[in-house]
């Protein structure tokens, strides 16, 4: 019997369809159907200024907007040959790590909800709100920040931000203990999640699975370490790995990643306290800051004077490895933009890690993948 789980189904956490062939309660085959949320972001980007694409990036992955802003901005800066000041880089890393915590908290909330745990769901959402409050305090928005700019970030953090941020991080570290008690301390949780959705390292690599799913299979791969971008080579942190390759492993990896993110955030905050300075590069082309498209002679001159280039960047996004490719032909708009979404690939490996388990296992397994359809369909 084929069952359509989706496009509107509590398990999907978005808008996609998982077709499942079941015998009794046992899954025999699955067929993910993606594309319900396709908005043509890559094509729209070709008709926008570089800084205007940031707006789209926030909507691309709505739970990890900062990471996607960073992804696109890095590729654009490479294409436009712009170097941001150090303080901007630290602010970006801080933002990306706060975003990782917020995204993982969102994942935690959705994942435990799939298991029927309602209380931790609200705990996760409650604590995520604190991180969103932090975002609001320095970007003005809670989800769609539009914070990063080619050549830096829009504005510096406000007075007193670092202290407030440290307070939130301390609070979060204490809460993580509570989370573990609620989940790992529960026998039912272990019975549900151990040896579930197993995707071993060779298969994970073959499918191109990245992020916590790959690290839970024992592969120590993290772009922040292996291919350091921004100032990740200046901060200390560990890459958590488990070798169980199951849902519990993914849980453990993500919880530890949040702790490591807190560590990174603290180092960034210390650096920011010690090193005041500009957050936006000087000598930027005028139109990079312009809210409108230059026309006529101005545009022509800009096109002639500005260098062309290619930009490619990869970041370790909360869900996995995201990539961006930006072609700059000298105009005020990117000529071509292409993204690599980690979630799309992680979902497609479902053909490998879902069959053999039961219908009741689908929500925790797909929950442990951490699906974000926005970036998946773009």
């Amino acid at each position, binding site marked *: *019997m084929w*069952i359509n*789980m989706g496009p509107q*189904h*509590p*398990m999907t956490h978005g808008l996609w369809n998982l077709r499942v062939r079941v015998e009794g*309660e046992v899954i025999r085959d699955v067929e993910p159907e993606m594309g319900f949320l396709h908005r043509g972001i890559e094509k729209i980007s070709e008709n926008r200024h570089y800084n205007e694409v940031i707006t789209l990036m926030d909507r691309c992955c709505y739970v990890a907007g900062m990471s996607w802003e960073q992804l696109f901005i890095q590729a654009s800066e490479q294409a436009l040959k712009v170097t941001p000041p150090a303080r901007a880089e630290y602010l970006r890393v801080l933002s990306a790590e706060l975003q990782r915590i917020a995204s993982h908290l969102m994942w935690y909330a959705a994942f*435990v*909800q*799939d*298991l*029927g*745990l*309602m*209380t931790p769901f*609200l*705990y996760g959402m*409650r604590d995520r709100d604190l991180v969103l409050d932090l975002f609001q305090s320095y970007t003005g928005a809670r989800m769609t920040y539009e914070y990063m700019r080619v050549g830096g970030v829009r504005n510096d953090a406000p007075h007193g931000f670092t202290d407030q941020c440290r307070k939130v991080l301390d609070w979060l570290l204490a809460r993580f203990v509570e989370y573990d008690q*609620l989940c790992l301390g*529960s026998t*039912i*949780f272990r*019975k*549900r999640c151990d040896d579930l959705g197993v995707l071993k390292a060779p298969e994970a690599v073959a499918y191109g699975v990245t992020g916590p799913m790959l690290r839970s299979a024992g592969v120590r791969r993290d772009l922040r370490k292996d291919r350091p971008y921004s100032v990740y080579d200046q901060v200390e942190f560990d890459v958590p790995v488990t070798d169980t390759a199951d849902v519990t492993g993914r849980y453990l990896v993500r919880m530890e990643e949040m702790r490591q993110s807190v560590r990174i955030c603290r180092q960034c905050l210390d650096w920011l306290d010690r090193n005041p300075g500009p957050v936006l590069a000087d000598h930027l082309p005028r139109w990079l800051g312009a809210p409108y498209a230059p026309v006529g002679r101005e545009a022509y001159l800009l096109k002639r004077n500005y260098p062309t280039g290619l930009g490619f960047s990869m970041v370790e996004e909360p869900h996995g490895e995201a990539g961006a490719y930006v072609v700059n032909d000298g105009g005020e708009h990117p000529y071509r933009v292409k993204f690599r979404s980690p979630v799309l690939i992680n979902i497609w490996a479902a053909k490998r890690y879902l069959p053999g388990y*039961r*219908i*009741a*296992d*689908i*929500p925790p397994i797909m929950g442990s993948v951490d699906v974000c359809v926005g970036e998946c369909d773009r």
Partner: protein
Amino acid sequence: MAPMTLFSVADAIAAALLGLLGRLLPAGAAHAVTAPDVVLGLATVVFAAILLAASMLNTILLIWYERKLLGRFMDRRGAMHVGFAGLLQNFADGLKLFRKDTVRPREADSLGFWASPTAYMITSLLIFGVLPISTGWNDGSLPLTLLLALVIFSFAPLFIFLGAWASNNKYSLIGGMRSAAQMIAYEVPILLAVVAVVVLSGSFDLTTIVNEQRNYWFWAPLFLALIVFVAGMLAEMERIPFDLPEAEAELVEGWNTEYGGMLFAFFMLADYLRALVGSILVVLLFLGGWTWPSYVPSALTSFPLAGIVWFMVKTYLVFGLFVWVRAALPRVRTDQLLRLGWMRMVPLALLSIVLAAVVVAARCLPVLGCIPSIGG
């Protein structure tokens, strides 16, 4: 003076009403309306109406209680805005559901689709007819109330499966099958746990069982049976961690996916009615019903309606335990649930019967019970 029972109250109300009617009518007709059979008939109706009102009111209060308690567990406040502390929120929700259109899928079987929520609701309400809430609730003329209550309680899987099948929806069907398998699997340990209580009290009559607990409550000697009974009741009520028939994460809403509006409200109300019955049964069988041990000051136990008040307090505390479980535990899987039921619960229940027999044989009840009986 005969002890006042709920039925005697209903009888008095009916007699008064008919007497009033009789005065307004000519003599011949007055004689007819005040005939004992007519009074008895009306008294039955009044009895049922009181019971219906009380059980529905309690159920709605129970939902409010769960919402508030669950809210506090989750670090929020629960319903706040409609009425004092959100007391009227459920009435508002009920009104909303009442006003909604009831949609039946075109391919669904009409008879089964309509009959199942109705029958589910009726059987759930029926149980209240046999549950004694305090002394004098009924006159003890039914010697098998416990058995009757459990029999009516176990009708549910039939109607759930009927509704699920009639909905003609894959999620409903899977949910219905799960529900049937689960409820039948957990009937067995529940009944076995109840046998332990019966062994100890020597009666199938709930009033007698409660009266037997006048000196010590059964939870202490029958702790094992209590655990089995509570776990089984959680499965029967389909509450977390055993709510997999309506596991919303994978089955949308399980067997009542296709039900909306008032039919959904029926299922919902019946679920909470059954939760109320479950809590009441725990109180009756293990927590001494409306009785208190003799060392409790009599001022606390002898005010008017003390029996009902304390009974409801205990019931709500037991239900609070169910809410706590719901707030704290994840959902188990079907195979795990069934394995737990057959492989763990049944042997434990059998063991508790043996324990009950040992307790009866050794006559060591006052030692095991929390309170030694003082002066009978």
